[in-house]
Each structure stands twice: as C-alpha cells, then as structure tokens.
C-alpha cells in the first residue's frame, strides 16, 4: 500500500512540474513568436481561440478529424483507430463541438494517460531496479527532448501506458495476468502498429516463467497453454483494424498503401537503409540550414537510443532490451523517402528501457546533469517550434 502511495506521489510531482514547464514555455512562445503564416505573435486577449489551439498541429489535427468524422479522408487510415476512438468519446462528453471538444479531450486524455504511465513506470522500475533509479527515470522520461508529445493530443501517452501495463501484468504472472497482458497488447496494437513488438517481451517472460530449467516441471500443460494463448491477441489488434478497413473501405491493407503512397512515402526497407541515407544527407547537404539541423537531430535521436541500448544491454532485463530493440528496428524498417528518419525521435522516446539505462548511468551526478541540461533545453526549443506550427518529429 505504501509503495502504491509512493508511486502516485513521485509520478504526481514530476507530472505537475513537467506540465508547468511546458505551459510556461508555451506562454513565452506564444507571446514572442508569431505562428507560421502570421506576421505578429498572437494576442490572447483578442484571439483566445487561437491561443487555445496552439497545440493543435500536425498529427493532433489528423486525430481530431478522425475522432469527429471517422476515416472519411482516406490518407487518415494510416493512423490506427484506438486513440481517435477514445478522443471521439471524450469529445462527445465535452459537448461534441468540432474541433475544440475533440482537441481538448485529446489534450486531457493524453495527459491523464501520461500521468498513469509515470505511475506504472515508477512501479515497474522501483521493483526491477530500485526507488532511486525509478525516480530519476520519471524525471528523464517527462523532460526528454521530445516529451512535448506526451502533452499534445498524440498517441504516445496511451501507447506507452499500455506497454507499461503489459510489462507489469507479465511480471506479476498470475493466471489471469497473461490474458490481461494479451488484452493490453491488443489495445496497444490497435493504437499503433508497433504494438506488435510487445509479443517479444511476452514470449521472453513466458519462456523464463515456464521453460527455464528450474521451472519446467512445476507447471502443468494446461497452465502453459493458458499463459501462451493470449499472445495471439497482440496481432489481433492489427487484424481487427484490417477487417474494419475491409468493410469500411474495401481494402484490408489500405493503411499500408496510404503510408507508402501518400506524402509519408514510408516503405518496408532494411533497418539500416534509413540511417545510411540520413548520414548521406548530412554530408551531402551544403550549408547549415534548418533542414540540415532537422536531419542531424533525427539522426542523433535515432543513434543515441541505439548506442545506449548497446552499451547498457546487460544492465537491463532481457525482455526490456529486446522490446526496445524490436521497436527501434520496426520503426527503422519504414523510413521516409525525403527525410528518412523523420519522426524517429518521437517513436523512440517511448522506449522506457532506454530511459532505465540512462537512469542507471544517472547515478553519477555529472552524467545526471548532462542529461537534464541537454534534455530540458532541447525540450524548451522543441515546444517553441511545435506551438508555432513547425515540424518537430
């Protein structure tokens, strides 16, 4: 009971502080920088609605559109349905006014999900490591350079919450927990296609729990099958969406064709193709412009988690490491044609095993401060860009 209270408290203050920092930086961003396409900064006393919508950009707009009119705009099928579905219900509860009800519902839900994600992250790491590491990890997670996407109405908060809940269910490992984990895996895959990678930690824990030499004889076949069967629910998230698309649009694979053909131009490639192509662009691009910097940041925030994972591989449990590697390889396997690693920093920020590695290294005070200073300054800059309707990730 005490541990639960500690988790709520630790998550609470990190959550509150990070929201305060995000709101303060947003305020200064609004006051000084005009949003894209305008010559003057917004005056919130005269255009309150526009100030309210400073977080209504990019994918957040797509989700609000889906939440309100469903998949009427075909390219939107690239976005998986669970998050806009939740936003739809939230929007209805807030009056059903388009777009504000759905947009605000998205913001509220993303933040609520993120708070719960922090609570679960603390629980997980405090038990798998220790309370000090869990505390540091919460701080790194909430102030990571791209953590603004845990604030905006994006899927990241929900997805990471589902992943963490699955990890906790797997660790407890009672008979019902395997089914709970399967269900959470289903919802995660229904939120983002990358959720399918959750099958890996599921399988690893299953093997450790039932097939390790010490455990092999302790469990009946019935128990083993009961624990393994729910893994099938994980790909069912994708299958359910495909069935929906087949009935609604006549093409079960429409989400893949839209990702490939619409302006994303994401196609299946070998994982290293995007990295090689990105390194090439860094060297080929002449002059140090903003697209050069964008490319450099995308590359940096793809390589940093990979390097951390390689160096810290042995310091985290195997299922953490394989989950993180799986997510990175999966996302790297779908590079964009123009900016190969675009959005990668956002996709990799949910890698809590990498955060755990940083938290382990953060025991050294100076490393801790390097991470804090670097992350917070980049987070502030990214917020200013995002609320000005400029591409971040």
């Amino acid at each position, binding site marked *: 009971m005490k541990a639960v209270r500690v988790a709520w408290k630790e998550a609470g203050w990190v959550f509150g502080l990070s929201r305060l920092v995000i709101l303060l930086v947003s305020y*200064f961003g609004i006051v*000084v920088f005009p949003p894209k396409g305008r010559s003057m900064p917004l005056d919130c006393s005269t255009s309150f609605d526009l100030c309210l919508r400073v977080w209504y950009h990019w994918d957040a707009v797509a989700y609000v559109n889906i939440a309100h009119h469903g998949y009427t705009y075909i390219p939107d099928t690239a976005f998986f349905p669970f998050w806009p579905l939740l936003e739809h219900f939230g929007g209805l509860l807030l009056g059903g006014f388009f777009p504000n009800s759905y947009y605000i519902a998205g913001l509220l839900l993303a933040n609520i999900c993120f708070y719960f994600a922090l609570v679960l992250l603390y629980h997980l790491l405090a038990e798998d490591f220790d309370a000090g590491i869990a505390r540091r990890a919460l701080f790194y997670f909430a102030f990571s350079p791209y953590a603004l996407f845990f604030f905006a109405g994006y899927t990241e908060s929900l997805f990471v919450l589902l992943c963490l809940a699955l990890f906790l269910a797997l660790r407890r490992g009672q008979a019902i927990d395997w089914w709970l984990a399967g269900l959470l895996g289903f919802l995660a895959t229904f939120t983002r296609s990358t959720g399918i990678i959750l099958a890996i930690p599921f399988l690893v824990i299953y093997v450790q729990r039932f097939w390790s030499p010490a455990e092999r004889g302790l469990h009946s076949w019935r128990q083993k099958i009961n624990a393994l069967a729910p893994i099938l629910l994980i790909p069912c998230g994708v299958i359910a969406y495909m069935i929906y698309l087949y009935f609604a649009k006549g093409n079960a694979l429409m989400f893949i064709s839209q990702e490939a053909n619409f302006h994303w131009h994401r196609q299946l490639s070998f994982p290293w193709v995007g990295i090689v192509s990105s390194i090439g662009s860094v060297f080929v691009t002449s002059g*140090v412009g903003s697209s050069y*910097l964008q490319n450099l940041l995308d590359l940096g925030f793809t390589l940093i988690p990979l390097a951390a994972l390689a160096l810290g591989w042995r310091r985290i449990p195997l299922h953490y490491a394989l989950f993180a590697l799986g997510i990175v390889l999966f996302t790297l396997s779908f590079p964009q044609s123009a900016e190969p690693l675009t959005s990668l920093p956002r996709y990799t920020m949910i890698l809590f095993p990498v955060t755990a590695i940083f938290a382990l290294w953060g025991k050294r005070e100076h490393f801790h401060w390097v991470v804090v200073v*670097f992350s917070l*300054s980049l987070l502030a*800059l990214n917020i200013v860009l995002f609320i000005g309707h400029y591409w971040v990730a």
Partner: protein
Amino acid sequence: MRDDKTIDDKTRHGHKSAWKEAGKVFLLSRFLFFTTTCFSIIVLPRLSARYAQQLGYDARWRFSTPAVNQLVFSWLRWDAGAFLNISYLGYQHTPDVAFFPLWPLIQHLGGLLLGDIFPYSFYFVGLILANILFYFVLVLLYNLLAEDFDPALARRALFILAFSPYALFFFAGYSEPLSLVLCLSVFLLLRRGRPGDWWLAGILAYLAVLTRSSGIALGLAYLGMFYYHFLQANRRGVASWRQKLSAFAPIAFIPAALLTYMYYLYLIKGSLLIFRMQEDTIWYRQFTWPWDTLRLLIHAFSVKTSLITADILDVTAVLIALLTLALGWTRIPWNYRLFAIALAVFTLSFPTHTLEPLASQPRYMISIFPITVVYAAWSKNKYFYAIFMALTLAFLVINTIFFVGNFWVA
C-alpha cells in the same frame, strides 16, 4: 606539525575539488549556451521574420555568410555593445559614462593583445574574459561555501548559479563575472583575515567599485568582518591598536574608487557627477524611495503596453529574490546577510522612471550570491532541487533565445 600538514593536505584537496567541480559545471553551462545559440540562429528565424531581423540588428560587421555572421555576433547585444564601444573609443559617447571603467579597460587591453581590430578583437576578448572570469567565480564560490557550509552545498550552489534564469549574463561580455569574482575574492580574504589580506581585500573592493557602483556594498561586509575579527567581546584584547588600524584603513579604498572615477570624469568631461546625470537623463535611473518605486510599478501596470510581460517578469524575479533572502535569513552567516541586504537595497534604490521600473534588476540580483546559497541550502531537499532546476533551466533557455534574438532580457 602533523596537524599543520593535515590541514594543508585538506586545503590542497579542497582547492583541487574546487577546480574540478567548477570545471564540470562551467563546461556544461557553456555547452548549453552554445547549443541554444546555434538553434536560435539556425531554426528560430523560420518562426518569425521579426526574430530573423532582430538577429541581424547589431551585425554591422559582416562575414560573407549571413548565418556565420549572426552566429559570431549573436552575443553582441545591449550593454555588450556599449562596453565594446568604450573599450575601443573610450568615453567619446557621453552617455556611456554611466558604465564604470574597469571592465571596458580590461577589454581594451585584451583587445590590443588580440590585434586591435575593431570590433572583432574587443568583442571576442569580452566574451573570452567574461567566461574565464566566470570560471574563477565558480572556483571561488566553491572554496568559500565548502568551508562556510559543506562541499555538497557548494556543489549545488555552482549548478544553481550557472543555470539560474539570468546566468546568460555570465556568458555575454557583461561586467557581471568580473564584479562577482572580485566580491567573492574580497569575501575569501576577509574570512582569512591575515594582516596582508585586509589590504588586498581593500584593493579588490576598489576594483569592484571601479567595475560597478554597487561594489560599494562590500563596505558593509568589510565592516562586519572587521567587527568579527577585532571587536567581538572574546577577541577585543587579542589584537593591538596598530593591527586594528592596519586592518581598518583599507576600507578607504572603497570610496576612493568612486572618487577615482569621478576625478577621471572631471578631467575628461569637466563634471564629477556626469555619470549620475547620464543615468538620470538617458536611462531615467534615479534614487527613489521604496514607496515611490511601488507607485512607479502601479503606474506601469495600470498602463497597458507591450512592456507588461517584462514588468511581470521583473517583479517576479525581484520578489522571489527578496523573499528567498527573507526566508533564508537565518541559514546564511551575518556577513553574507549584510552584503546581500546592502546590494539589494542599493540596486533597488535606483529604478528607472519608465514603464519598466525594475528593468535590469533581475540581472543585478544574480550578483547577490548569498541568495544562491539559500537556494543551495534548501536544495538539500531533492524535490525542491529538482523543481527549482527544471524551472530555472527552462527560463534560462527562453532568456537565451530572447537575448540572442536581440530582445530585451534584463
């Protein structure tokens, strides 16, 4: 003999730690300024034509590539420009006499060493010297606090100072690092209190006043330490009158610095008090009683102008600093208190009679290092420390973006 050796070893070890701890904090904070500057130059102009225009505002001296030009001159803003001009031209432009002479004089000598090419030599030397001096500020602060408190508090204080919301003025070619390094040296010498130390402290205080008029606040700290060493009941009979006189006499260096500058101004401009007149007529900075400052503030808030955000920030920064001093009063030694209160009262007594009455005050407040000490003491609580650092870091980045973009910060 063995005891002496142990003390010497401890001191040597303490000094080594100071260089190391200061070095780490220094490098990390410089890295933050460098990356934020690059980001501001490369990415943020996309956000606003005004920001892009502001970036080029002071770049009268052009490199062939605009981005390089903006990057190189991104810290030539506001007072840094005034110091640059004085260092090259002297006080030709009369309003510049409001800036005290030691910092531009050092910049002048450094500029000569770097080839005497205007503005490059003087601007770069200003940046380099400010940063070198800030490194020494960190070393001295660590030494002072590690002994007056403990090494853990000293370490926290370094982070708090180097990443405070207005710490960018320890990076720009402003006089803050020089002023603070001199104040800290005076404190260290007065604490040791050997016969030669009083004279050295007097000379350094003289230099501090020649850097900023607020250096005069050191007089109160000096008096306090003199009382501590010689006039306390248990020490009264220990020193001879001659020793007491020798320790007290150097306090005269403090007003002497002011007189030196006034005499110099008399020679070149024909008026002893021209620096006060310029402050008054150009910056509208006048001696004002606190209740009148309050009236100025009420007026500033009642008139709705674009300065309202700046006013809110100024008032918040000053109130937080004063509140910290009040709440942490008992946590710092009395010589720290005297210095802090004297410096705060002195700077707050000269508000600007404009719609931003507390303009620059947040910057002046960062030199009141006892406030940093209070924060460091409170930061023993890890929650306070984390909250404090997250907020100050966010503000530091925002202020740096604004400063580089030639917006007024403090």
